[in-house]
């Protein structure tokens, strides 16, 4: 059963991720991203992270993807791109090589260490609290960790969010006199 859940969720995650990078239309990419995020949420549940699974669906699949779609529609870039032409020669082979190198590095690390989990779990003391216990305790435990050991970090994140809101307002504000791009204006004059 657990294996079935994992395999299905992993298939959804990987299919969605590949869909994000091969879709020619940005709207399709955003919808594939939703599939990936839901798959991740399922995996979170399978790993006893019930609160994070709920937050994942609400914040990521809800707010962030809707924000993406909103911007896509606002800017009117929901057109199909031409993915066949490659403006920069050799970019894709190089990217594939770099990706293979990255994956190889991760896999080597994984296979060197994957036998050590049991010994690590036995040898280290839990820093802020244990995860194991009844599933209904997940929210209480996470809240306790956030509001005791990580209280300072938690307060900093609230400052970060305020800064982000102010930054978004400043960036998206239209100036009183709509500025014209200097380069293009000069180009038009010279032609």
């Amino acid at each position: 059963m657990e294996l079935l859940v994992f395999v299905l969720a992993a298939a959804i995650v990987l299919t969605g991720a590949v869909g994000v990078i091969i879709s020619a239309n940005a709207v399709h990419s955003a919808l594939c991203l939703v599939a990936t995020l839901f798959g991740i949420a399922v995996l979170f549940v399978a790993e006893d992270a019930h609160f994070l699974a709920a937050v994942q669906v609400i914040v990521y699949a809800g707010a962030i993807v809707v924000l993406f779609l909103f911007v896509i529609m606002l800017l009117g870039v929901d057109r199909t791109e031409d993915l066949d032409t490659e403006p920069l020669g050799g970019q894709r082979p190089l990217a594939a090589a770099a990706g293979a190198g990255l994956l190889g590095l991760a896999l080597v690390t994984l296979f060197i260490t994957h036998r050590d989990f049991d010994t690590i779990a036995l040898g280290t003391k839990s820093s802020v609290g244990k995860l194991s216990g009844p599933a209904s305790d997940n929210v209480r435990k996470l809240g306790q960790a956030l509001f005791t050991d990580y209280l300072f970090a938690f307060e900093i994140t609230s400052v970060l969010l305020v800064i982000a809101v102010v930054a978004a307002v400043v960036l998206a504000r239209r100036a009183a006199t709509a500025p014209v791009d200097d380069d293009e204006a000069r180009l038009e004059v010279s032609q």
Partner: protein
Amino acid sequence: MALALELARPTPTWYLLLGALLFTIGAVGLMVRRNPLVMFMCIELMLNAVNLTFVTFAKALDDIGGQAIVFFVLVVAAAEVVVGLGIIVALMRRRPGATADDISTLKG
């Protein structure tokens, strides 16, 4: 080999493998795509891969700290998306249909 023997139920290794694959797909997408919005989605993919890894380690090491970190990553990701999309909107207003190549003119 070692993985095949543990087919009965998914071990942490399986989740870490999935996280590595997801991170790689996101990284390759970031290097290949030129639409700034799609590049941004690829960054989200990479962040999610890391979140999955954190949750896996929280479970494997029986430590709630891994999940607390994921909470903070979510907050930072939300802030990052807000600022990033603000920049993209400001950019696209000046130059409709700009790609990552056009943004290189910002370096002066």
